[in-house]
């Protein structure tokens, strides 16, 4: 960069401003002022944080932790209560169901018993009627059977008379019936 250059002149003037030419951080004539001032600032900030800001923040955070832990404890308690209530409700429902089942079973047994009893009674009545009917049928049949032999004798007599022209005696008729 041999050509005259505005940047170059700028740089030279600044380099002159630096004095020794090294890093400006090593210009020790400015150290004491900075160090003293920084110590003051540090001390003031330390006091502020130790006495004001630190305790304030810690208080808020402790408060928050307490709030959260108490809320969690409450929630846990409520949850336990709810679980207990749910268990109680379940037990109640189970008991009610068992009761209902027992009642239903009892009712069914009673109804079955009644039905059986009624059925047995009706059966007895029906059987009696059947027996009666059978007895009357038997009687009628016997009577009919008795009539049958008379009819047979009459018929035989009538047939014999027509065929032979003679009337058969009662004794002959009976003998013939026995032979037939």
């Amino acid at each position, binding site marked *: 960069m041999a050509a005259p250059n505005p940047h170059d002149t700028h740089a030279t003037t600044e380099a002159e401003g630096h004095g020794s030419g090294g890093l400006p*951080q090593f210009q*020790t004539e400015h150290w004491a002022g900075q160090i003293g001032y*920084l110590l003051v600032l540090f001390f003031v900030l330390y006091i502020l944080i130790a006495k004001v800001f630190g305790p304030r923040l810690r208080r*808020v955070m402790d408060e928050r932790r307490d709030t959260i832990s108490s809320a969690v404890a409450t929630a846990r308690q409520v949850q336990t209560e709810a679980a207990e209530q749910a268990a109680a409700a379940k037990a109640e429902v189970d008991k009610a169901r068992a009761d209902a089942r027992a009642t239903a079973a009892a009712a069914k047994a009673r109804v079955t018993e009644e039905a059986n009893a009624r059925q047995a009674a009706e059966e007895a009545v029906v059987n009696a009627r059947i027996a009666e009917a059978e007895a009357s049928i038997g009687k009628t049949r016997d009577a009919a059977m008795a009539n049958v032999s008379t009819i047979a004798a009459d018929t035989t007599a009538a047939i014999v008379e027509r065929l032979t022209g003679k009337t058969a005696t009662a004794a002959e008729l009976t003998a013939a019936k026995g032979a037939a």
Partner: protein
Amino acid sequence: MADPIHQFQIQKVVDLGAVNLPVFGHTELAITNSHIAMTAAFVAIVLFLQFVTSGAKVVPGRLQTAGESLFDMIDGVTDSIIGHDGRKYFPFVFTLFLLVLAMNLLGMFLSFTPTSQLAVTVTFAALTILLVIGVGFIKNGLGFFKLFWPMSAPLILRPVVGAIEFLSFLLRPVTLALRLFGNMLGGHVALKIFAGFVVALGAGAFVGEGLGIWGLPVAALSMVGVVAITALEFLVAFLQAFVFAVLASIYLNDVVNLGEGH
């Protein structure tokens, strides 16, 4: 191209004259740009904490959440590193953290970064190490020197390990000061140089100087670099403050819990 070092120059705003101090020698007393930036950081912290804590609610707002997360983070650091006594040292570490963080972050917006001043980082480091030494002697008396007599090492090796421990203890303030100083210095120099490329090469392309028309792609590339480094510097600004706080806690822990399971 603009001088990348110029941004670190202390400039007097109000001159208060010069004196000769015993340790520092010739000293210029003045309200400088460094003082103004430090004050801005301080005021920003106080306002932030005031907003965070004044209307503090159990259910926090956005700002309160931000403040509380910083608080929680440093509280966690002191608590987990120092242990039960951590709360006693929390204000110190939190003050350290907030001041470094505010000065780092402010440096991303203002033209001056106090933490890129060696005097400032040396002050932080000296404060930390002096507190460590003070607490060490108050809590342990001369037992403080047990720090350099590692009981866990075999007897023959103990003087050697002790010497190394002593040397590393001496280097602690130096590394504390130089780590922060170097990070801030390097980051801001890199930013300035890349930004300078953008302007110098971009302008050169139109006037026909420098790389001419070829300066444009380089300028564009530099622009991307500036954006990337800016993002990185925000990360570094936070990280260095956090590292400072963590290291201060570790050094404090060494003397607070001296001889308890080293």
